[in-house]
């Protein structure tokens, strides 16, 4: 009788010493996932897509400027109308010189960014040099393309510094990959774009750029109900990334728009 050894299999493929496995030339084997055994596979997939709710309630942004890449995000997680958390880390540290932002399904973003970090490290070990931002984003985009239509919800930006200088790519769950200078992703992105586009100049200092990023996130959290919490700002320079600030947007509001104390404090009415 053949024993069922499926429990011993792992999703991480093991590289034998000296074997020319597929891992080494960049085309890594896909982590294998079990598919559900149902009579109505398409209906089940449709329901699970709706459950993940690819609404992308968040605000993230990133832009390239003279001194590198500035990356910023809010920290709210919402389930429909309910705020489930005000302290979610939406900027994921892939490795010391590359950052990824999270918009969409939290589980999807966390898993695939960690998977990307693994692949980047394997590339470094195999080729004795760091992977470029272009290469890393392409790895992620190809991976997501192979799961196209299955209900993943990922709207991410890969920001980093490599030999060609600063790099910024937008990658999403449809398999799209765009190179650019300025991106904002999420339900609060129209509001962030408004502030970001009007204040952007290429030759800004790090302080000016971080203030622009913080202000853009703040304005998005003010207008968008699904964004809020803490505005985190990171800078990616030639030495790698550094977290610059994490300000609570509730306090930022009164910092930008202080309340002037009025002379008449209460309205008092005499009732007959």
């Amino acid at each position, binding site marked *: 009788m053949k024993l069922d050894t499926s429990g011993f299999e792992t999703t991480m493929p093991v590289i034998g010493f000296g074997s020319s496995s597929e891992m080494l030339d960049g085309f890594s084997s896909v982590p294998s996932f079990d598919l559900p055994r149902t009579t109505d596979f398409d209906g089940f997939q449709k329901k699970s897509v709706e459950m993940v709710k690819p609404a992308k309630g968040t605000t993230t942004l990133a832009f390239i400027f003279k001194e590198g890449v500035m990356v910023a995000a809010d920290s*709210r997680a*919402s389930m429909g109308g309910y705020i489930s958390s005000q302290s979610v880390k939406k900027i994921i540290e892939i490795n010391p010189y590359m950052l990824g932002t999270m918009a969409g399904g939290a589980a999807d973003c966390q898993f695939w960014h960690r998977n990307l970090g693994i692949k980047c490290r394997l590339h470094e070990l195999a080729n004795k040099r760091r992977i470029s931002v272009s290469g890393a984003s392409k790895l992620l985009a190809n991976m997501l393309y192979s799961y196209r239509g299955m209900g993943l919800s990922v709207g991410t930006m890969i920001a980093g510094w490599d030999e060609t200088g600063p790099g910024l790519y937008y990658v999403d769950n449809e398999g799209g990959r765009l190179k650019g200078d300025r991106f904002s992703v999420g339900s609060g992105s129209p509001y962030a774009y408004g502030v970001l586009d009007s204040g952007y100049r290429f030759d800004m200092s790090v302080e000016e750029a971080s203030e622009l990023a913080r202000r853009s996130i703040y304005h998005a959290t003010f207008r*968008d109900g699904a964004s*809020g919490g803490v505005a985190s700002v990171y800078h990616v320079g030639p030495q790698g990334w550094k977290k610059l600030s994490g300000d609570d947007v509730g306090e930022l509001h009164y910092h930008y728009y202080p309340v002037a104390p009025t002379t008449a404090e209460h309205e008092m009415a005499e009732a007959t």
Partner: protein
Amino acid sequence: MSIFEYNGSAVVAMVGKNCFAIASDRRLGVQLQTIATDFQRISKIHDHLFIGLSGLATDVQTLYQRLVFRHKLYQLREERDMKPETFASLVSAILYEKRFGPYLCQPVIAGLGDDNKPFICTMDSIGAKELAKDFVVSGTASESLYGACEAMFKPDMEAEELFETISQALLSSVDRDCLSGWGGHVYVVTPNEIKERILKGRMD
């Protein structure tokens, strides 16, 4: 999201010792987008009677105008103000008239009746009255409000303590709701005066 969650709202009323407090948030939104941060949800009917309306903003405004009209007619005919219990019955009847095409709001009524005894009640959108002795809540943040009020409420609070309690309950509840908040509006009413205050809240 349902039609009751289209604009977003939070209203709460609490009973104290010969006084009551009624509070609401100030956000007007269109689903997730915030349009205004100074929307009036609580309105005065007369010096000892307030009504707060949550739900669809257009119905909030229209229903308030209808109720003010009916109360003014009552004042002309009876030459006195309406008692809160009577007003609650009036609101319930007006809502049930539209049983098959209802006003999409949930009122919270708070007033001082005979002997300055505080009266509060809430209703669903077709006029089912729910009287309470301690507090009533309504709006998109209603579940969080129930929890906060249950934890913070004590009977027979004086006006200042009641103000603190209702403000804390409102602010902590709307901080867990994407669709309401952006400040608070509190009215504390005693037999001799009405104190109106604006709360500084999280603007996200």
